[in-house]
């Protein structure tokens, strides 16, 4: 069964360093989401892509976070510089979206990348 892949699974970095996360969605899924989950809270959307275009990045701290999905397939989320408050689980999800008149909004989640900033 196809799954969303993420790497690395764990990342420890020092404050002010740069860090990057990678996500490979389920093949054929046009919509890709990056969520951040702080301990004790539910996931919160950071950025949403439809193919290679950003649909929603209203909650993305753009002074330090960037995201790209250049060919409309896999995606990278970058933080530079990392701060202590960025310690969290970063989840990637994908959905079929809208294609050829078909609509499916069910989101499939990856295993996440747990970031610890020291």
């Amino acid at each position, binding site marked *: 069964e196809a*799954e*969303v892949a993420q790497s690395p699974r764990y990342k420890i970095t020092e404050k002010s360093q740069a860090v990057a996360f990678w996500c490979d969605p389920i093949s054929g899924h046009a*919509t890709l*989401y990056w*969520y951040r989950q702080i301990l*004790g*809270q*539910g*996931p*919160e*959307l950071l950025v*949403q892509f439809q193919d290679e275009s950003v*649909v*929603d990045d209203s909650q993305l701290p753009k002074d330090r976070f960037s995201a790209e999905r250049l060919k409309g397939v896999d995606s990278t989320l970058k933080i530079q510089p990392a701060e202590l408050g960025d310690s969290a689980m970063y*989840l990637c999800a994908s*959905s079929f*979206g809208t294609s050829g008149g078909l609509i499916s*909004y*069910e*989101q*499939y*989640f*990856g*295993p*996440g990348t747990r970031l610890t900033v020291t």
Partner: protein
Amino acid sequence: AQRVTQPEKLLSVFKGAPVELKCNYSYSGSPELFWYVQYSRQRLQLLLRHISRESIKGFTADLNKGETSFHLKKPFAQEEDSAMYYCALRGGTDKLIFGTGTRLQVFP
């Protein structure tokens, strides 16, 4: 404002007891609600959605627009139901707005 509230962080029951995980929402349009579950060491996965009106693993949830609630229920809890449960609302761009989650512990 779009918001999902799960008032209980932890719910502990014994096997065979009924379970109700509470979820309330705030949304100005026609809501679409979901329950997601995360078992230990597994990824977040969809449990059920209100538009399907189906029962999954014995769980059901009914959307009550008058009370703006979408509580998850199961008449007889099993040990394998122990997990983290998140209620979620589909927002305008199809993003999910999650509650803070409820941890369900089912004791033998």
